[in-house]
């Protein structure tokens, strides 16, 4: 195991994050704060509690999940796409590093950034609405698992994309709508039966539900199922990355 290489890639990526701190942290924190102001303090005060949780607090796990998903994908996809775009990927490919080590460095850094950002957003949310965390260990487990899984997903997108436009395609056109429709702002129990069934095909429902359970002990689907679905998606992403490295897809001619 070439730990020094993993460390180098990890620190290189973290350094890039530090250089773009405004774009990386301040921007998502401000946009999330706006959600709390609008949906929590302004509109939220007119909405009754859901499952016994005040609406402002109820949307915290969903909003955190929204940031976690988009930032994980964005960090990891850009991290691997940019060296491909600029050509500096030659150095990674010619170094004595295994695909696993490359993924560990890039995805580890992307997940770290997302987790830190998630914690900052959580602290920001606490300024606007009262928050309680009933199951902190499960909360951290979901935070880490989701960050790692979607960073891996972002890595896959970064390998697949052949232009900057495609980098934005999946997060904007697929992930964000799925998150909005995945119970971030409501309980899927509030939907008519047909749409409730349709929602169960949305993987983000399981993430938001499990994450919300760790906060308030309330969930749309069972926590075990949420964890299972997260692990399933993690396994799918791992399989995709493995296949991509094995075939050299978009990396090696």
């Amino acid at each position, binding site marked *: 195991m070439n730990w020094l290489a993993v460390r180098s890639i990890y620190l290189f990526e973290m350094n890039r994050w530090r250089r773009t701190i405004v774009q990386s942290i301040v921007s998502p924190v401000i946009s999330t704060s706006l959600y709390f102001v609008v949906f929590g303090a302004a509109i939220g005060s007119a909405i009754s509690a859901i499952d016994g949780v005040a609406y402002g607090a109820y949307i915290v796990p969903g909003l955190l999940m929204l940031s976690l998903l988009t930032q994980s994908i964005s960090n990891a996809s850009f991290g691997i796409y940019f060296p491909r775009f600029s050509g500096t990927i030659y150095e990674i490919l010619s170094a004595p590093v295994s695909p696993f080590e490359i993924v560990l460095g890039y995805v580890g850094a992307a997940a770290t950034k997302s987790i830190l950002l998630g914690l900052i957003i959580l602290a920001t949310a606490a300024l606007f609405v009262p928050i309680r965390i009933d199951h902190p260990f499960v909360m951290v487990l979901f935070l880490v698992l989701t960050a790692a899984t979607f960073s891996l997903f972002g890595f896959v997108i970064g390998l697949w994309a052949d232009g900057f436009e495609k980098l934005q395609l999946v997060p904007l056109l697929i992930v964000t709508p799925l998150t909005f429709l995945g119970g971030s702002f409501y309980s899927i129990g509030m939907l008519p039966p047909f749409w409730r069934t349709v929602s169960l095909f949305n993987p983000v429902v399981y993430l938001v539900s499990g994450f919300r359970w760790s906060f308030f002990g309330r969930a749309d689907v069972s926590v075990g199922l949420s964890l299972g679905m997260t692990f399933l998606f993690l396994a799918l992403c791992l399989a995709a990355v493995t296949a991509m490295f094995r075939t050299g897809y978009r990396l090696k*001619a």
Partner: protein
Amino acid sequence: MRPHEFEPGAASDAVIAIEGLTKTYKSGFQALKSVDLTIRRGEIFALLGPNGAGKTTLISVVCGIVNPTSGRVRVNGHDILTDYRAARAQIGLVPQELTTDAFETVWNTVSFSRGLFGKSSNPAHIERVLKDLSLWEKRDNRMMTLSGGMKRRVLIAKALSHEPQVLFLDEPTAGVDVELRQDMWRLVRALRDTGVTIILTTHYIEEAEEMADRVGVISKGEIILVEDKAELMRKLGRKQLTLQLQAALPAVPASLGAYDLQLAAEGTELTYTYDTKAERTGITSLLRDLSEAGIRFRDLRTRQSSLEEIFVGLLKEQA
């Protein structure tokens, strides 16, 4: 056996052994056709070839950037596929394109390369490399603020950061000024003196002529020749004897028709081209026949054909 074929007996002397290497891209283009090549430890090997001949593909396969279709490559006995860590750890690559991390500082990007190759931090070594390449003053500059020549130096520094045994230089002096080219040649020689094997591809024949111990010529994916540079020039080099005449000649006299003679400089220069490989060069008889024809000359000089002329000749032969 052709001179470039792999010789198992010479394996201990071989730092890179390539056997039957083939690369066919998805488009169907066959970039390498069963290439056999042995690079000797500690030599400077120049790989010459026109655009699209397969030089960069060959380097890319050895370095792990391109997957081979078939064949085997070993670096110091380590297979590049089954023992890729050991193989790659010994190689430094300076790519043709100026691909750099625009926002990183020189120091950080060179240090990153060292870590990537599994070497623990060694600021003294990085400092030495940067100083050798006249980059020390620029160590805190971001890459995007550097000139093209400086970026080229940084790429070399990155390749040397992990103390490789083999250094690939893919068109190292493309687009750099004369001063930097001379600096690089000095550096390459200094590296060779420390035992580093250097393989360079180049379009500049004078670069190979100036530096290489051996020369390989690749064309259309095939190695068509590998030879010691001096031997190559001796074997294939044609020499020219130029005589500056006392009086201009209107034409080459018919009595000298047996010789390969050309008149130039308004009839005041007579050039005789001869083959150094021939048993007799014909110079003695030419001088005698010139004397008999009453042609006097003031001065004479000889000139060996350049590697470039040899290279062009080889490619013409192949075509």
